[in-house]
Each structure stands twice: as C-alpha cells, then as structure tokens.
C-alpha cells in the first residue's frame, strides 16, 4: 500500500509539469501576442515593448517556461495590473470562499443524492423511482446559473430570507451567505449522485451474494445498506470525484450570480479587465485543483476498496 501511495504521488509530478506546460502553451503561443491581448489593439509600440519587458516576454520561450514554473513553485506569480496586489495574495484571499462553497455544496448534494438513489433503487419502477428519475432528468438539463438566479429572485429578492450578495463575515454569517449558492450547486449534484447511486445499487442488488444474504434471513435494511450500498460505493467514489470537479466548474458562474468572492469571480473579472497575470494565476489554480482532486480520489479508492490495497 505504501508503494501504491508513493507511485501515485510520483505520477502526479509529471502530470503537474504537463499541466503547467499546457497552460503555458495556451497563454503564450495560442492567442498570439499577450501584450496586445492585455493592452488592446490601440496600444503604442512603446507601451507594448514596456509590457513585454515587464512580463519577461522578450526572453526565449524555454526560459519563459522555466521562470513560469519557478514562479508557480515559489508562489510568486506577479502582480495584478488593476489592483497592484500580488496574484498569490489575491488567490489566497479568494480561495477559501470557493473551497467553502464547493465543500458545502458537496455535502448537501451527497446527503440528498444518496438517499434519493437508494429510494429509487429499492422502489424500482414505482412512483418514488419515477419521481427521482424525473428529478435527475431536469437536474441534468437546467443550467446551474439559471437555477441560482431563480433561487436568488425568489428567496433573496422577494422573500428576503437570504442575503443578495457577498461572502459574509465570521462563521455563522458565512454559512448564511453560502447557503443559497451551495443549495443551487447541491440540487444539480443531487440529481447526478441520485442517478448514479440508483444505477450502481441496482447492479449490486442483482449479485449472488445479495441473494445469499436474503436467503440466510438478513433483514432488508441490512441487505441494502451493509451488503448493497457498501459495494456500490466504488463506482460512486469515481462519480463523486467527477461531481466534485463539476461543482468546482459550476462555482464560477454561481459566484457571479450571487456576487460572492472566489477564484471564479477573480478569474472572470480578470478576463474582463485583461489582467494577464491574474488570468494566468486563476487558470493555474483551477488546473492544480483538478490534479489534486484526482489524486485524492485515487487515494480514497484505497480506503473504499480493500482489493486495491492487496493487489498493489
């Protein structure tokens, strides 16, 4: 198991490197001249030259890549052109809000989705099953930012139950502010997790050992939760990893809808202002999120599925 852990961690290093390379290629080569991208078509030749000088864009590409990677590793990614704050500082200020939103949404979504899936699987082709399937059908189709805007209009604007915008101060206030945005993402997530739980539980429940468990007289609850759900967890873990990343991508639009601080809002704001260093920082943060979450999911498999521990 220690070997598996070590191998998986070592494997993450070239992945991080490759991700940084792709981000670098995208930022420096694809869109043409970043100086024009940042300053606009109207910039004079001197302004462009000054910008290139300042951002180190005159150096050979391989040196630029090296200093880019070095900057990421040493947490020195330049300063924002708009606010003159360091990019790392901006990221560190906004990061907790995004993590908070994603985690609360995740917990709410799983807490609602798994029981829904179990309900649907244990009442297959009956009313609860149809209800859950309709719910996930709509949950798959409705855009999260639309759902968020509707919740905002109803519960914040008209009923005044929740604040309209902001991130909040102190734990209780922050939870109060995060509730509606998290609920939005959680509803979409519950649709996904519910459908996934239903499918994998149905598959497990058709296995021989479930018949054996019933034959030896185990109580139905024990069969469902102890023998069934536990074995349905592995595909669910994969699904939750995907779903965590989906929630993270959804958080970008949701932060905009509810006007709360966060990495998504930082990135979108930077795009509007062509704040080159901040765009780069935001993109790197999201890329690292993906690498880290995938790593954590792989490690979680070991906990959920003892077979991986034995085989490696």
């Amino acid at each position, binding site marked *: 198991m220690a070997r598996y852990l070590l191998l998986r961690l070592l494997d993450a290093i070239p*992945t991080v490197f*490759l*991700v940084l390379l*792709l*981000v670098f290629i*995208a*930022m420096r080569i*694809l*869109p043409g001249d970043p100086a024009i*991208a940042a300053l606009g078509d109207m910039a004079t030749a001197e302004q462009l030259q000054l910008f290139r000088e300042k951002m180190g864009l005159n150096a050979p590409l391989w040196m630029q890549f090296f200093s880019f990677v070095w900057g990421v590793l040493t947490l020195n990614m330049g300063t924002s052109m708009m606010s003159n704050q360091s990019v790392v500082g901006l990221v560190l200020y906004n990061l907790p809000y995004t993590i908070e939103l994603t985690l609360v949404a995740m917990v709410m979504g799983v807490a609602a989705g798994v029981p829904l899936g179990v309900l649907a699987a244990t009442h297959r082709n009956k009313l609860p099953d149809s209800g859950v399937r309709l719910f996930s*059908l*709509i949950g*798959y*189709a*409705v*855009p999260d*930012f*639309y*759902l968020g*805007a*509707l919740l*905002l*209009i109803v519960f914040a*604007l008209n009923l005044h139950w929740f604040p*309209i915008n902001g991130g909040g101060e102190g734990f209780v206030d922050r939870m109060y502010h995060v509730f509606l945005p998290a609920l939005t993402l959680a509803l979409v997530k519950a649709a996904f997790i519910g459908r996934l739980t239903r499918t994998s539980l149905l598959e497990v429940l058709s296995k021989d050992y479930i018949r054996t468990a019933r034959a030896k007289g185990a109580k139905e609850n024990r069969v469902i939760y102890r023998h069934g759900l536990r074995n349905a967890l592995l595909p669910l873990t994969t699904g939750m990893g*995907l779903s965590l*990343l*989906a929630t*993270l*991508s*959804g958080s*970008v*639009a949701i932060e*905009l*809808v509810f006007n709360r601080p966060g990495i*998504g809002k930082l*990135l*979108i704001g*930077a*795009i*509007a202002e062509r704040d080159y260093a901040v*765009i780069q920082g*935001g*993109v790197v943060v*999201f*890329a690292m999120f*993906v*690498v880290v979450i*995938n790593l954590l999911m792989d490690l979680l498999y070991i906990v959920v599925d003892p077979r991986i521990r034995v085989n490696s």
Partner: protein
Amino acid sequence: MTIIADPVPELVDGGPGRFDFLRRALFGRPATIVAVVIIAAFVVVAALAPILAPYDPLTQSMLRINKSPSWENWLGTDQFGRDVLSRMIYGSRNSLLFGLISPFLAAIFGTTLGVIAGYFGGVVDRIISRVIDLLLAFPELLLAIMIAAVLGGGFWNVIVVITVAFIPGFARVARAQTLSVKQDPYVEAAIAIGVRTPVIIFRHIIPNIMAPIIVLMMLWVASAIRLEASLSFLGIGTQPPNPSWGNIIRDGLNNLFGSPWPIIGAGAAITLVVLAFNLVGDAVRDALDPSTV
C-alpha cells in the same frame, strides 16, 4: 483477386442499413417523440427568426424599458427597452448553431487523433494518450472556461473553445474502438494482402467505429448548448449586443430589480432544449447498446 481486394461486401439493398438504429431510436418511445418535436420547433424558430420575431432584437427604446409581459411584448422588455422574446428567438440561432457545429468538429478532430493513436501505437500513441488522459481529468466546462479565459469571447473563439473541450472525449472513444477493430480478421486480412494504410483507415477502420462516435455526438449536442450558454453568461461567449440565451440571463441578472422575465424566459428555453437533446441522445445510446437500459 478483385473480390479479395475488397473484403467488405456492399450492404444488400433493402437490408438493415448501418444507421437504421437512428430511426428506431428517434421514434421508439413517446418521450423521445415529444423531444424530437420540441427540437424541431426550436429549429424552425431559429431558421425563421427574422419572420417570427415581432421586433428587431437590437433596437433600443428608452420609452419602454423594463416592461412586464403584455400583448405587445410577450416576455416584456429589458433595461434597454429591447423586446425579450425577439432577443430569445434570435438567441436560439446561436445556441443551436454552437450546439450542432462544435460536437461535429470535435468528432472530426477527436476521431482523427484517436484513430492515429490507436492504429499506429508506439510513441505517437503514448504522447496523444497522455495528453488526452490529462485533459479528460478536466470537466468540459472548466476546460472551456480556462481556454476562453485565454482566447476571449466572440463567435469563432466560442466554436474553438467548445470544440477543444470535447476533443479528448471523442479521441478516447475513437482510440479504444480502433484498438478493438484493428484486431478484427478483415483488418488483419487487409494488412496481410498489402492494402495501403490510408485505405485501411478510411475504408475499414473509420466506418466501423462510427456508431459510438455518432452517439457521443448526439449526447454532446446538449452539453454544447449548455456550454455556450454558460460561457455567454460568464461574458466569455457570444458578445453583446448579439443575443444569446446565456447573455440574456447575464443582462437580466444585472437588471434584477428591473424585470425578472429575461432570466425566466431564456433559462426555460435552455432547460427545455437541453432536456430534449438529452432525451434524444439517451434514446440513441440505448438503441445502440441495449445493455445500458
């Protein structure tokens, strides 16, 4: 020898065609028929937008801003006095256009990459597979946001962004399918008698991996429409004043105290179209692979 040179016989006329499953899938279940009708209705609306739209989608009027729905303006007007329904009707063009073009382009590029990786193997395969595995770790939306962050909005950029976000998925499927088809006796026979590589790829490999690619294309039309809406909502998709369902919601959110109708209308349109395309995509997948039902 001419018979051996063409190991795949032409399909007999009147027998089941390669894409017969599409017809069965589309008209098999009542829910799918409803979905097809909804899609057809939106396509007609998008095609006939100049005739159907009661007003010009860009004409502003300070005299009638933030109107509630009425007989003159079925969905009211926005903060610039533009007719919301007309903007939605014209916006449907963008949604459907991106929804259909991007998966198609992604299928072409992704299949090319996947077939190259799967057929030739070796270093080429290792490089392509590694990059694809990496990109597959990103949700399409996040990948699209990251690319759009770099490229910016606008018609062609949005097409590029959504296409690139979908390429890894197609490449993975095409690669796996190619690996499996490559083992089939008719491909081995073609290689053995010295058929040229491009001929093998275009005549024997690609036709035999098309079915899952087409299913994926159908499944991702809905995702592409959602992606375009999300990007436009974020301000990195279709650029104002051109209407798109996503940026109508964005405008609506900036005018929350004015009128909620743009948000409600445009969001409902996105949901309905995505739902319909999801149903059709699922039906096509089920028809092709009954084990997933």
